């Protein structure tokens, strides 16, 4: 598989310099084409083929996400995406304040490269077979919907079989397993979903912790976990077809969890009719 790498230029902040270093290191290892964000912004046609023919890795320095936004503008869904500031917060690295990288910056860049490569290998393993849903555990598609009408919009909520938190994340439970996704109301709020970042398989997640995120051209949305548990599967189909969430929000699950304390978690969730009332209130406030 060949890659194109679109990274921050590294001329604004040290985190950006790390992104630039990551791009160069990745390109050295994996014979990948580097895409200059400034040139892409100015003359998109220059990289038309590189974007069409390769999987894209986006490396941003900070949350301004210049590279990510340019990828979205070019209509390209990244295969992999990292933001250096996010990794910096989660890791113990300290970054020197200068644009020219010191030993801390170099070490961080290498750690990011390693993380990207590990994620790719893990991804390859998942596709090869791990994470199946056990026999007897079935997630039936919803049959009856409650419909909240607001102006020209219609928001559908499954009448039964699904629970929600007030952060617009649904959960469907079957035999100790749970699938989570975002509600019809939230997918319509976000508009066209362009990227899904599922939680890592094997991660332990607390109720109300983060269970992945999705991005649209309009916003980034962090999924607040309606239940606690261990991530056993992610919906790989969404990687290449994030728009499925817009088309079928209650079928497009993002992660499957092995539940830890469903009874306790359930007490803090609302059912379909209560969520429909919540959506009615939110739509009126928008």
């Amino acid at each position: 598989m060949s890659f194109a790498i679109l990274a921050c230029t590294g001329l604004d902040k040290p985190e950006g310099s790390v992104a630039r270093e990551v791009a160069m290191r990745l390109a050295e290892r994996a014979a990948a084409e580097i895409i200059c964000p400034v040139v892409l912004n100015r003359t998109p046609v220059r990289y038309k083929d590189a974007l069409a023919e390769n999987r894209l890795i986006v490396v941003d320095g900070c949350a301004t996400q210049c590279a990510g936004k340019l990828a979205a503008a070019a209509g390209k869904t990244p295969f992999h995406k990292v933001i250096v500031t996010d990794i910096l917060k989660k890791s113990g690295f300290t970054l020197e304040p200068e644009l020219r990288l010191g030993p801390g910056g170099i070490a961080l860049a290498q750690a990011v490269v390693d993380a990207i490569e590990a994620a790719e290998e893990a991804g390859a393993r998942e596709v090869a077979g791990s994470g199946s849903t056990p026999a007897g555990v079935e997630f039936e598609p919803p049959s009856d919907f409650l419909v909240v009408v607001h102006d020209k919009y219609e928001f559908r909520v499954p009448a039964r079989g699904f629970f929600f938190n007030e952060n617009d994340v649904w959960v469907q439970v079957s035999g100790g397993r749970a699938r989570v996704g975002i509600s019809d109301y939230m997918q319509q709020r976000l508009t066209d979903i362009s990227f899904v970042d599922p939680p890592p398989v094997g991660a332990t997640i607390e109720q109300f912790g983060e269970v992945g995120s999705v991005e649209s051209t309009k916003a980034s949305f962090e999924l607040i976990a309606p239940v606690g548990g261990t991530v056993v599967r992610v919906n790989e189909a969404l990687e290449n077809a994030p728009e499925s969430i817009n088309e079928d929000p209650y079928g497009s699950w993002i992660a499957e969890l092995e539940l830890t304390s469903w009874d306790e978690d359930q007490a803090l969730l609302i059912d379909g009719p209560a969520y429909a009332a919540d959506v009615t209130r939110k739509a009126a406030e928008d």
Partner: protein
Amino acid sequence: MAENTFMGVPRSKIPWAPTIDYEKCDYCMECDDFCPHRVFERCDGDVQLVVANPENCVVFCRACSKTCGPDAISFPDKPGIVALIKRLHAAEAGPVSEGAPAAQKEGAK
């Protein structure tokens, strides 16, 4: 009444809102452009942006901080807030169990 609750807990009792670090903020206004709930308000003067309506902030939402290039927006510690909400939720849901021991004490006197 339903307007201002989160998980059955009055929104005013949940201290979830962004804090702006003015040492870092460069007033690019990305956060304000993003937030549909009018949490922020622009103003004239040295400080050009304030958290004007903290109770409009969606509990647990941190999306504005993800638009912030200079990393100037922070939120309260989430596990702490979750614990607080669970406590308040239990109190709202079960005033009987909270009141019962006190009532017994009264009776015992």
